[in-house]
């Protein structure tokens, strides 16, 4: 097991490096001189040249990458063109908000998905199954930015029950004043994982129920609750892995929901950066979210292996 952990971590390092290379290249695939993407357009010429030297933009690409990476490792993601503030600090604040949203959406989506998925599997072929599967298909097919608008129309415009945008006054606190703002975006964001987890749980549980050992257990006259325990133990690794990845998608993919609800997280930050063509912010936010995803992938793999050694990849 220890050897496996070491090898898996060692494998994550080149991946992380290459991911940062992709993020580094974002500035270079932007049309025009990369320097124009980094400094504001009205910067005096001497200052532009100074930045060019500082970032090593007068050197060949591999050297530039090394220089950029050394800045990044020290927590320096550069400055925003629009606000001229360091990106790292803003990104920290925004990540916190996105984390709150993603955790809430994951909690809603995963519980709903596990409940509906198991229901569908145990009542396979009945109307309950069809209802759950229908929900799952709708969940994965719905454009969530549209669902967000519909939620706003129903709950904010027509019923005037919940706020339509923002995350409440000042810093995030878990009280009703703030939670009111969280409800609509979290439900909107939870629909896709709910649909996907329903599908995964249903498929996994049906597969387990068809295995020989279940028939044996049934033949031996096991009670329903006992059967359930066996199913949970066997389904957990697969389902947990999908959940881990889904959480990563929620953190990295909340941009559309965040822009519908003006939720001040990383997605909103990205959205504003795209609007202003603030490439360093796009680069910084992408890098941080992607690194989080790499780390999450690593943790999922390790946890999965720990609870089910059959999964150990060679």
């Amino acid at each position: 097991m220890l050897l496996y952990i070491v090898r898996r971590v060692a494998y994550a390092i080149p991946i992380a490096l290459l991911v940062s290379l992709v993020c580094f290249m974002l500035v270079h695939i932007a049309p025009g001189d990369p320097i124009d993407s980094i400094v504001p357009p009205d910067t005096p010429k001497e200052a532009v040249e100074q930045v060019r030297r500082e970032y090593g933009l007068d050197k060949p690409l591999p050297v530039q990458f090394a220089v950029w990476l050394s800045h990044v490792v020290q927590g320096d993601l550069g400055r925003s063109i629009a606000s001229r503030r360091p990106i790292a600090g803003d990104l920290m604040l925004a990540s916190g908000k996105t984390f709150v949203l993603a955790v809430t959406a994951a909690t809603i989506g995963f519980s709903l998905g596990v409940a509906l998925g198991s229901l569908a599997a145990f009542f396979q072929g009945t109307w309950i199954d069809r209802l759950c599967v229908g929900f799952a298909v709708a969940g994965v097919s719905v454009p969530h930015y549209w669902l967000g608008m519909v939620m706003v129309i129903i709950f904010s415009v027509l019923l005037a029950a919940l706020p339509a945008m923002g995350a409440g006054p000042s810093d995030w606190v878990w009280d009703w004043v703030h939670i009111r703002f969280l409800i609509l975006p979290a439900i909107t964001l939870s629909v896709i994982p709910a649909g996907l987890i329903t599908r995964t749980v249903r498929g996994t549980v049906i597969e387990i129920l068809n295995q020989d050992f279940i028939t044996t257990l049934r033949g031996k006259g096991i009670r329903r609750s006992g059967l359930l325990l066996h199913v949970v133990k066997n389904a957990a690794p697969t389902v947990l892995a999908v959940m881990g990845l889904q959480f990563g998608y929620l953190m990295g993919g909340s941009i559309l929901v965040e822009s519908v609800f003006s939720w001040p997280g990383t997605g909103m930050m990205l959205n504003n950066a795209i609007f202003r063509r603030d490439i360093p912010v796009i680069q910084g936010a992408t890098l941080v979210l992607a690194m989080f995803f790499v780390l999450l992938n690593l943790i999922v793999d390790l946890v999965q292996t720990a609870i089910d050694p059959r999964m150990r990849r060679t």
Partner: protein
Amino acid sequence: MSVISSQEGRLSGRNPPPVVVSPGYWKGVVRRVSRDRVTLICGAILLVMLLIILFAPLLAPFDPLQGSTGRRLKPVGWQGHLLGTDELGRDMLSRLMYGGRYSWFLGIAPVVVAFLIGGGLGITAGFAGGKVNMLIMRATDVFYAFPSVLLAVAISGALGPGIFNAILALTLVFIPPMIRVSESVTTSVRNLDYVEAARATGAGSRRLVRVHVLPNVLGPIFVYATTLVSVSMILASGLSFLGLGVKPPEAEWGLMLNTLRTAIYTQPLLATLPGVCIFTTSVCFNLLSDGLRSAMDVRA
């Protein structure tokens, strides 16, 4: 779609002994699809939508780009505007018809390109094995390290708005999963006994790929590609919704949703119509690919 079929046609045309697929298999697929009511209905809805957006210039009652300040945000049925008018006084029905052209194109084109490139690379990796496989699959892992929405947004955000940039970004998002699926399907076929037997009787690589591997892997890979269409449509419209992708004043469902956001207080029903179109299309594509998958008996 036409790109795929013409490619296959050319392959079999150039190499006279046609691809060997037992005729019974496709008969079975057609029979199973024709018994599947959900799949048939979804197929029919999509066909009708396709015809409407193809013939939009003939069917649309108004010019989709011609607005007027005097008739902004009029309700459904107002003076011949069957679905009302948008925030600039343009006819909604006509804009939805024209908008479907961009939404469908932006949704399907990346999957088609990813099918060709990702499928090609995946089959190559699976068939060649060894170092080639290693190289292709490790490169794929890097792109897997990005959540798909983030990758699409970051790339097209850096490239800037535009149809070509959006298609490029989405294609890059879909190539890695296409490679993974094609590689695993090809690897499992390559190790089957009959391929080994063909190799033993002296078949060369080209013949092995053409006669023994391709006919058996294209089906599953194609089915997998169809499952991506729904995601691709949602993402493509999402990019336009964010101001990437299709630029105003053109009509595109995601872009229309965005510009109509200001209307949710005055004309809430109108503001959600483009979303209904995206939702319907994406549900139908999802169910259709589910139906195809079970009819073609594809696992994975």
